[in-house]
């Protein structure tokens, strides 16, 4: 499903060269739930950004669904992000001016041929999956951290993507709420067959996933 071949990411300034990813080779199968662990600054988030087509590797190839993603223009990358990927962020990243329902609808706004009524229906279904269909008209600042993250998950899955990319999704939550969020993701992986790549610092959460990839200084160490 996701294949990284000799992927390197080097950040250069006039005086310093920082290797964030060093010849990384990873193969993630369809339907896998993979967690990525490692100390801060080891390249976990860079890896997730590259898989999420939000950043480009300095060298190497990335393949999504057997298609090499190289030299794609902004529009094509945006299309792929919209169709194939869904993001969950540590700090939720909801738009505070929009209601829960409007936030969840966002990915569908950029999908051609989806009418307003279909958008609404799909958004309500996604909110139901995360158990938040009673809060559609609320605004993000009226919700708890766990509820916000559930909205973020609903937004990530509303377009039915093949891959979910979660960057420390439980990092800002207490253990009970973190457990809730983890269970939602596990359930999605199990029932919908969604491929999930999760970056985490939490050994306990990582232990619940099928595979753990450890990173250190930009290298995969297991």
């Amino acid at each position, binding site marked *: 499903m996701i294949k990284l071949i000799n992927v390197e990411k080097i950040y250069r300034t006039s005086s310093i060269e920082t290797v964030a990813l060093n010849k990384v080779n990873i193969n993630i199968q369809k339907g896998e739930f993979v967690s990525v662990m490692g100390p801060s600054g080891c390249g976990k988030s860079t890896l997730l950004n590259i898989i999420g087509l939000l950043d480009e590797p300095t060298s190497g190839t990335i393949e999504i669904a057997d298609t090499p993603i190289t030299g794609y223009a902004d529009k094509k990358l*945006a299309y792929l992000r*919209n169709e194939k990927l869904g993001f969950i962020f540590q700090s939720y*990243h909801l738009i505070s*001016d*929009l209601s829960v329902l*409007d936030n969840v609808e*966002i990915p569908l*706004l*950029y999908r051609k041929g989806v009418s307003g009524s279909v958008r609404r229906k799909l958004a309500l279904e996604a909110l139901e999956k995360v158990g938040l269909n009673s809060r559609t008209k609320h605004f993000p600042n009226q919700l708890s951290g766990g509820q916000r993250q559930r909205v973020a998950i609903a937004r990530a899955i509303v377009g039915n993507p093949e891959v979910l990319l979660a960057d420390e999704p439980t990092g800002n939550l207490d253990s009970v709420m973190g457990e809730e969020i983890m269970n939602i993701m596990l359930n999605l992986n199990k029932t919908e067959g969604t491929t999930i790549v999760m970056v985490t610092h939490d050994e306990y959460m990582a232990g619940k996933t099928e595979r753990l990839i450890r990173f250190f200084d930009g290298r995969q160490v297991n």
Partner: protein
Amino acid sequence: MLRNYIKIAFKVMLRQKFFTGVSLFGISFTIMIFSITTVIFDLGYGDNAPAVNRSRTLYLDGISMESPTVPYARVNIGDDFYKKLRDSRDVENICIYKAGNIRSFKNGKVIIFNVSYTDEELWHIYNYTFLEGRPYNKRDIITGKRYAVISESTKKYYFGNGSAIGKYIGDEKKFQIIGVVKNKVILYANGPEVANILIPYSISTTSYASSNPAIILAKSNKVIPDIKDELVRMTKRIDQYKSLKDIRIRLSGGTVFEMRDFGYAILGLSIFLFFIVVIPALNLIGLNVNRISERSSEIGIRKAFGASSSVLAGQFIIENIIITFIGGILGVILTFVVSSALVRMIFYNSPESADGVYSALISWKSVLYSILSALFFGLVSGVIPAWRMSRLHAIKALKGGSAS
């Protein structure tokens, strides 16, 4: 998607009240200036009722001649001269007129009204809207009827509400009112349209054998130079000038464009409007960059979920157009208020000022100019920040970074 953009635009406007206030003030004020300037310009040069054919009208104030033997003289041009000119293939119509004034009394006070004595062709060249009654015709002129067509404001001032038809105006030799025409704001009058009262020229106390001004309607504005040449040729053929050598003929008057240095006016106005629109637009660009920068996280979110840079740029431009459109509507209201006050100031010493029946400078044209300039303003001030911010790297944007 548009509904979502509109929703966001309003939320952002309400969230950033100071920015919104400054923007709306700047936009509406700019649009008001833009709109009033363009309308004044249009009133000065455009084909506006009653002078609907101004662009192909030659306003002839008089003709003068000079030669080594005759130093300077005004040429007598009367009915016969104009009759001959009427035969020219370039001339569509001619209205001969003379300006004057008449006295009248109201509550023991003397009132002086501007009067134009005209022939019946006035009604063909100009387009007056009759609120009541009728224009005078050729028969009225031949029979020397003491008729008058008055303006709406003159009627209201002098007769109040109710019909004025059949009533009289003037002092000793009164004129019977047969028509009332709608008022127009005339900032630059060249011919009879300046008058409050229009009267058949046959009863003018001044002789029509002397030099008469006329409005000459050309078949097109291209043939106006030919008509001028013809006027010069005709003057040279007048018996008393035929024998003169080295005669120089000078026409006074011209088209509205010639009389008002149109070229300079256009250039001046264009420069003025350019600054009027562009300087606030530049300010707004700066404000917009700040405003959008505060939303970098939103840019990152939208990019992550599939918005391309061009789609995001479109969103910000639409948002900006929404705010400038609201500014445009406020600008129209401001234009109405300020232009009404302006009209009152301009006409403050005319007898009609008291009843305040002037149509303001506001018109469908000024509304159109306002809306168009608001859209232009929205585009100019929105495109650069939108383009700049839409190029923001998604990761940087999610971290709350600014455009580089």
